[in-house]
């Protein structure tokens, strides 16, 4: 392995407090759902059922699945264009997500958003934002509303490490800290922003240092270990709810290309292979097996359940209606006002 290769994390920051076998199996199944769902998306993209940009989360499932565990229904999630995992882990109907990517009216954004703009207000999912760092200021505002209305809700804002270079990161961290807002900044550090390795985008690659200059506590977590993520983010959410913003850096990796158009000239196959050895799904499955909490049968059953869910999602997408073209200009403004 050469110098430029990014190494998967080897250790956890804190000793793990392990959950019940049932909970751990649920985590596994959720990650499997995200994985299989996206693998199906690739097929459907190739079949031209899904169009536009499609950014896969494959390899990073532990982050969204682990992070969502500690969020309450009243909490709000804001994510990037790479947010299928977040939507599913947050409990959005997989059928509504798939239908969205098919551009159908039963999609979670009525087909107007597509893969990059999954919305589900009933699950507190405020998108799916496709402007890098564009949702960070919004997360600050969500936190502000929470404080002003004393709802106790937390804004969980996911973004890639590439977003850290944008001015919006800086402005948002400062505002959130200055006003002590309940915002958890969840930085999914997968080492690359499209083809730009973090060393070539950040003069200081220890991103947690950046957080400290805003007076924001920072944690770095092994983002391939869903239980480490769950535990770390649980702590962060608790702090945010109580006292103010927290920055969490989740060390992860995308196994696939940036999007469907990426020839991946910028990274080594070896590097990808090394990270694949740390597949979050395998990691947890192995751990469960070692603890005697998972056998082939159980795994097969989980696969089956996941496949059924994905099949049902695709069926819902296939059978969904297209919105009438005459409705094109609906939702530019609220219905009553024009």
């Amino acid at each position: 392995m050469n110098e430029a290769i990014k190494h998967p994390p080897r250790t956890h920051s804190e000793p793990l407090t392990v959950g019940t076998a049932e909970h751990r199996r649920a985590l596994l199944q959720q990650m499997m759902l995200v994985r299989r769902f996206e693998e199906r998306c690739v097929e459907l993209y190739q079949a031209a059922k899904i169009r536009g940009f499609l950014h896969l989360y494959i390899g990073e499932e532990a982050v969204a699945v682990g992070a969502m565990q500690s969020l309450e229904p009243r909490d709000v999630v804001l994510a990037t264009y790479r947010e299928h995992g977040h939507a599913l882990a947050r409990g959005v109907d997989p059928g509504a997500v798939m239908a969205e990517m098919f551009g159908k009216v039963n999609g979670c954004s009525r087909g107007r958003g597509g893969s990059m703009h999954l919305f589900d207000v009933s699950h507190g999912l405020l998108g799916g934002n496709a402007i890098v760092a564009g949702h960070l200021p919004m997360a600050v505002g969500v936190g502000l509303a929470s404080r002003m209305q004393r709802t106790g809700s937390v804004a969980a804002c996911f973004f890639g490490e590439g977003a850290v270079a944008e001015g919006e990161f800086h402005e948002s961290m400062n505002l959130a800290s200055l006003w002590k807002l309940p915002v958890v900044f969840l930085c999914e550090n997968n080492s690359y922003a499209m083809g730009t390795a973090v060393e070539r985008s950040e003069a200081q690659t220890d991103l947690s240092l950046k957080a400290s200059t805003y007076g924001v506590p920072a944690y770095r977590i092994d983002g391939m270990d869903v239980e480490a993520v769950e535990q770390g983010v649980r702590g962060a959410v608790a702090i945010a709810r109580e006292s103010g913003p927290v920055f969490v850096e989740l060390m992860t990796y995308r196994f696939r290309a940036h999007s469907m158009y990426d020839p991946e000239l910028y990274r080594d196959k070896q590097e990808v292979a090394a990270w694949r050895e740390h597949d979050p799904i395998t990691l947890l499955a192995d751990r469960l097996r070692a603890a005697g909490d998972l056998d082939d049968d159980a795994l097969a059953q989980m696969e089956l359940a996941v496949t059924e869910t994905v099949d049902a999602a695709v069926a819902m997408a296939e059978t969904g209606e297209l919105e009438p073209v005459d409705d094109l200009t609906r939702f530019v403004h609220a219905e009553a006002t024009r």
Partner: protein
Amino acid sequence: MSRVTMTYREACRQAIREAMLRDERVFLMGEDVGAYGGCFAVSKGLLDEFGPSRIRDTPLSESGFVGAGIGAAIEGMRPIVEIMTVNFSLLALDQIMNNAATLRHMSGGQLGVPLVIRMATGAGRQLAAQHSHSLEGWYAHIPGLTVLAPGVVEDARAMLWPALQDPDPVLIFENAALYNSEAEIDDPPPVVDIRSAAVRRHGSDVTLITYGGSLHKTIAAAEQLASEDIDAEVVDLRVLRPLDDATIMASVANTHRVVVVDEGWRTGSLAAEITTRIVEQAFWDLDGPVARVCSAEVPIPYAKHLEDAALPDVDKIVHAVRRTLGEGA
């Protein structure tokens, strides 16, 4: 109901005060709105009355606090975000166009952004190129926004409340040259909508269409023209998006001649949109080409004589009207 005399600045302040009193979800956020009293003294005194949570000073971070306004609006608040002047709003344009104006549609109608953004606009105070933009017409290009430009004290007083009632984002442009202008207005203020233009002067020879900072110049021009026996109608758009086509076309149908006055740079001005709509909707009513009086296509210079030369004024309006009436048909 009684009549009170107040300045445009005072009208803006009273509108904010009243909204804050009526609806506890309303708060004001922006640079120096609190301790400093507002860069145009609009919010002077409000910090004392409402405290720092609802009169919220922000750091210099236009993108950050405009975005924060969007997030807060989505989550049930009714923020009034003040950007000191339109010149700095460029730093927040991504938030305005890609989030505020877009979220409802992109989410298939699930989200709404009931946000009001106020900003001062306009030139004429020798502040030079970076502090003299008139971009309200430019903002009117963006679907999903409502764009207001109160040109009279009464509208400055009355338009904020309906803007706050709008479930979607509303930008309010206050021409800085108007803050000291004074008028006697109804108290309590009349209920205005934020959909219709106002005819400020009735006339039959020519329609002058304008808004905001150019309104008073246009009325003055109309009065001067009256002494030449030219009877001009003055339409104050007030609402730059959506445009009130009905009022415009009704006036054109009457006068058959149009001059549009707009402080924006000529090319790509709101005046071009107005002209084009008239061509599309009332071409056969026209007795001659529509004329525009706009700003010269230069970054606004500091020197007074050059700045004056760059901006619409009474003379230029009068000339344009004379030329328009002199032409053809």
